């Protein structure tokens, strides 16, 4: 990825702990949802973050746009440390950092019309002076996501899931943010509608030239929309690589397991589905060394002692595994 070399987001040793209550005696415990995660996203780059449920991908995304505070670690946005920002400064930051949520049925206020929803950010940041101007900007955003002017006066319940997600995307992009987190933007949608939204996002990227982090559990979606992919397992990054390389040559045994588990829509190319034992371990009780060791075919005694560091094995290809 030589075309992008100007970091817009730098994440350093990010940690997020949650308090949980354990067992009958309500003993307090902590889980590390995001555990010592570091990465860089360059301006203009599209980065995918994949992993299974509970791996910490959504928590990471929420912390990046500061909807959540990290327990420790730093987030540098455009050269500025935003991990400790509060009050008005944090509010100003929202103009440049936006998020699109997974569920378009709960992310839009049911009492507001589409126009109210789109106008809100313009009012907060005093972008347009006259109401005519506001209307023009809202209309443009709406048309850019493939909706029409007559939709402005309608309420969210009058729209289908795919249309609602279009509205959520318009709201996120109306301020022309520099960085957007897309959290499973199509996982609540049917295949035919998903294709519409994926094409739309791809076109908007060119038009609005924003950088984004795409969070998804679906590797085919991530492949379509990312230049670089980060694979997360139990709060840790285990592999980072350019998209084409990750699909050609996945190195981490977890990435390999993930790739081999996706059902392939080609009946001539069936996988030998194996009954592999083993579940994802609980974050309450993580294994002592590498978290993937209990399920790993390459496990050695070393793997049970320490968690391997993420290291560069090829240019731009990072892996956290002793055996690679």
């Amino acid at each position, binding site marked *: 990825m030589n075309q992008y070399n100007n970091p817009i987001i730098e994440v350093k040793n990010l940690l997020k702990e949650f308090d949980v209550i354990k067992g009958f005696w309500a003993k307090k415990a902590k889980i590390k949802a995001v555990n010592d995660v570091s990465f860089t996203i360059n301006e203009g780059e599209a980065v995918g973050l994949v992993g299974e449920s509970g791996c910490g991908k959504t928590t990471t995304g929420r912390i990046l746009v500061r909807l959540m505070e990290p327990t420790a670690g730093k987030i540098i946005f455009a050269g500025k440390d935003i991990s400790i920002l509060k009050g008005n400064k944090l509010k100003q930051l929202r103009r440049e950092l936006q998020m699109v949520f997974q569920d378009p049925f709960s992310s839009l206020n049911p009492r507001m019309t589409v126009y109210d929803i789109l106008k809100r950010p313009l009012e907060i940041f005093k972008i347009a002076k006259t109401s005519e101007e506001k209307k023009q900007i809202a209309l443009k955003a709406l048309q850019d996501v493939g909706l029409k002017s007559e939709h402005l006066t309608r309420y969210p319940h009058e729209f289908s899931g795919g249309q609602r997600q279009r509205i959520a995307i318009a709201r996120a992009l109306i301020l022309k943010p520099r960085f957007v987190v897309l959290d499973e933007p199509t996982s609540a949608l049917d295949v035919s509608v998903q294709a519409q939204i994926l094409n739309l996002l791809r076109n908007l990227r060119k038009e609005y030239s924003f950088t984004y982090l795409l969070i998804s559990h679906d590797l085919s979606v991530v492949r379509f929309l990312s230049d670089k992919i980060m694979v997360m397992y139990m709060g840790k990054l285990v592999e980072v690589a350019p998209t084409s390389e990750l699909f050609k040559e996945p190195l981490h045994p977890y990435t390999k397991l993930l790739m081999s588990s*996706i*059902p392939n829509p080609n009946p001539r190319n069936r996988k030998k*589905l194996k009954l592999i034992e083993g579940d994802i371990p609980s974050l309450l009780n993580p294994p002592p060394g590498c978290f993937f060791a209990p399920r790993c075919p390459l496990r050695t005694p070393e793997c049970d002692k320490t968690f391997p560091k993420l290291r560069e094995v090829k240019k731009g290809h990072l892996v956290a595994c002793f055996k690679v």
Partner: protein
Amino acid sequence: MKKNGKILEVQNLKVYFDTEEGIVKALEDVSFSLKRSEILGVIGETGSGKSVTAYTITRLLPQPPGMILEGKVLFEGEDLLKKSENEMLDIRGEKISMIFQEPMTALNPVFTVEEQMTDVISYHEKISKKQAAEKAIRALELVKIPDPSLVMKKYPHELSGGMRQRVMIALALSCEPELLIADEPTTALDVTIQAQILALILEMREKLGLSVIMITHNFGIVSEICDSVAVMYAGNIVEFSSIYNVFENPLHPYTEGLLKAIPPLDKDVESLNVIPGVVPNLIHPPSGCRFHPRCSRKLDICEKKPPKLVELTDGHFVACHNPLGGGKR
């Protein structure tokens, strides 16, 4: 019963729902069949009628609001729609079992795995509690649950999602049914766990000669484990054949459109094929072919007359006035 005969034949099912907004025409003229030891995929998007089909076959459809207006469900030659509720109680679990999408809500949270399993087994078989428990453990072993005697004592909330789905499958298979209907059994699970459950269903077919109806919205799952597939759209079956026919030679424009809308895993593409528009409202479905407003191959007749599901080439059924020529994808 013949070894390779048809275990299930669904003929011309018509199911409506009476709701406050109006009559929902959920299933219209749905017909398909399943051979013994075959895995049939029923694929469709939200609201296509795939779950209603499953609930009609097992007679679990709530009536009202559901109304079964026409059709037959022939299981081993007998029409299930003519059975009394008592007869169905004997058939469900023993001959036909069903597993559901969300194992947490399908299992009873206040009973242990053992209580739920022995309850089902002793309903169908006159055996002692101890024998029933032994049978339950054997079923748990069959689905590769480690330490089955330990899991027997647990409540559903103490198990992970993948384990719960295995318990559900064990429960469904504990009385050795001939037909398993699986309604999106892996949708709530992660891909690595999904692969385990799919492998398990394949193994059960090998070991027990089970016939399976797999309801899903995922073409990947169908291509991995099914022998044949029925594609549903807005309450109709639009295409029905072997998976090779449907995947490599789709005849219905909807099937073709869906297949091309999936982002490919093995190559980079610039853009995805899009089926314009949205799924219709089934209170006021489009006239004629229900797919015609979204179809690129629409003819005049499509607005007027609903196409019948006909066998176009050997074993390849399609409901379309203007089917694709059958060129390779």
